[in-house]
């Protein structure tokens, strides 16, 4: 083994150790509370208490089509405050869009972990279904939230599933972006959408941002290939990870998908 490859191997091990010790910090960039924004949106704010007593902060934003029989549930990215979704909600042909901050984000209590987030997502879906009997649910997930939306769609019956810039798994993102091949067993927050994508039964739309520098389009396409349900893929040209949600074409295609359900 040459000197360079030995150094590379040692570096890889050090980075792996750092990731192992701090993986929650690498994955969850908790959004700080935006009090002035919360004040502006206070008419739409709500909260739910989880089974283990955690209060989650959320909103019910009015959609564009208040007479529609469909409600959206939005799951945000790993640094996103879901209060930001109000603008997007107003453009979607849904009666309303629910969005809750993950534990530790904004004013939601607790600590984020994959287990907590998945359990909370299922609880949120049940809460909304119980609150709106006879109404159809569409789950929408952006970035890390696509793994959450995909999980909900794989575990409960929903009318449709929209995955925006989905990641196939945290391990894939680390391997692609940091060139770090970590044994999957050391990654505790796996968000392995690739594993359960095949269990999604509802029609699913996958959006890919052509210039995505955070989640390479190849990982989103990998998710699309794993889906066994009725599926569509749409590439949003000249869009990066953080501006895909505000692209006019994204909104149009979302509404086309919603209309097709």
């Amino acid at each position, binding site marked *: 083994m040459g000197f360079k490859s030995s150094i590379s191997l040692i570096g890889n091990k050090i980075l792996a150790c750092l990731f192992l010790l701090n993986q929650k910090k690498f994955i969850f960039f908790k959004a700080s*509370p*935006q*009090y*002035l*924004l*919360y*004040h*502006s949106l*206070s008419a739409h704010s709500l909260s739910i208490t989880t089974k283990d007593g955690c209060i989650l902060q959320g909103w019910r934003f009015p959609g564009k089509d208040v007479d529609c029989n469909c409600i959206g549930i939005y799951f945000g990215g790993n640094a996103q405050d879901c209060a930001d979704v109000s603008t997007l909600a107003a453009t979607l042909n849904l009666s309303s869009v629910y969005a809750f901050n993950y534990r530790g984000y904004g004013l939601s209590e607790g600590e984020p972990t994959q287990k907590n987030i998945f359990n909370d997502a299922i609880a949120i879906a049940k809460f909304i279904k119980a609150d709106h009997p006879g109404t159809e649910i569409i789950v929408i997930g952006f970035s890390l939230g696509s793994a959450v939306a995909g999980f909900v769609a794989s575990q409960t019956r929903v009318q449709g599933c929209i995955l925006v810039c989905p990641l196939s798994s945290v391990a894939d993102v680390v391997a692609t972006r940091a060139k770090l091949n970590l044994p999957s067993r050391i990654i505790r927050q796996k968000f392995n959408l690739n594993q359960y994508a095949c269990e999604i039964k509802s029609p699913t739309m996958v959006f890919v941002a052509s210039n995505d520098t955070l989640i390479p389009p190849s990982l989103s396409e990998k998710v699309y290939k794993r889906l066994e349900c009725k599926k569509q893929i749409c590439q949003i040209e000249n869009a990066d990870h953080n501006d895909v949600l505000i692209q006019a074409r994204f909104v149009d295609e979302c509404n086309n998908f919603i209309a097709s359900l």
Partner: protein
Amino acid sequence: MAAEITLKWEWPDNRKAEKSILVHVIEFKKHSTGIFGIGKSPSLVQGFPDPYTIRGVVENKDNFLHGKTIELTLPKLEAGDIEKNSTVVLGVINNETCICIRKTDEGANKAGSMSCDGL
């Protein structure tokens, strides 16, 4: 310790404040320009002339805002005769930008109807 709400300053430029925030000032001091005066650079957001920082507590009767610490750095000229223990109204746009400031003697119950437009 960082304030819970941090606003940036911009001149109004014919814009109207969307929100009025009533603040009890607990500190009013010359803004630190950092080591070697790096913060004096005009290209920095707070690089305007004679910057002062107001730190205070929000008095609006609102669940999300009441009691929150707030901080704003602005040109001394715009601050007028504000001092520690003053009560001021901040005119805010886009939930992050203060475009006007006015000292007031009104109580917190008046905050909703206050405006500093036109100053």
